[in-house]
């Protein structure tokens, strides 16, 4: 079992009711973690537009390890 630090921002954290959680998952990659997380927070997948792993924005599936930080981010609205 891995424990990931998962961050949420903007409208996404309204769904999870938290900006930071420790999330346990057997998954060893991002696709698996997303699947597990979206089961827990059903509405989350609709609000997420970008994901960062250890502060690097990723476009596709990547391997994960225990302790990684994963940020689920809604569409940006800076400026």
């Amino acid at each position: 079992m891995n424990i990931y630090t998962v961050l949420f921002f903007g409208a996404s954290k309204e769904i999870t009711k938290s900006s930071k959680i420790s999330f346990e998952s057997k998954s060893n990659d991002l696709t698996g973690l997303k699947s597990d997380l979206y089961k827990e927070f059903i509405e989350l997948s609709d609000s997420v537009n970008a994901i960062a792993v250890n502060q690097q924005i990723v476009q596709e599936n990547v391997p994960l390890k225990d302790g990684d930080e994963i940020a689920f981010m809604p569409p940006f609205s800076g400026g």
Partner: protein
Amino acid sequence: METKSPLCHPSQEDKSFLHLVEGPINDISINNINGGAFVEFKGIIRADLVKGQTVSHIDYEVYFPVAESILNQIEQEVLEKFQLRACRIFHSYGMVKVGECSLLVQVVSKHRKEAFKACSEIVDRIKGEAPVWKQEFYTNQTYQWVHCNH
């Protein structure tokens, strides 16, 4: 619209950010311009009317280390692309009231055309690439997260 935000900003472990400013951005002078052209863009909070409610302020949420890194990357890439003499970006986090500045871009180049193009490209890239989120508050104490499409 929600009535009250129950959540605060993520903790900021390192405050030594060059591009992120808490609250409104005041005038920042740029020295040794060594001209020709100096173009400056300021993003100012508008008192928009949304569903009958007037905007009072915006609370900017930022993914700090990633936003800082991306703003720095944009600055360096545009500096090189347009062969600028100087380029600086400042973006607010936290509360910025109507009429206050939340984004400042300063560009210095030999000629005006590159300066205008570079400044416009920087603002477009910030809106598309920087992990920053606007929480718009209204005069009746309600708020909503803003989804930009401009």
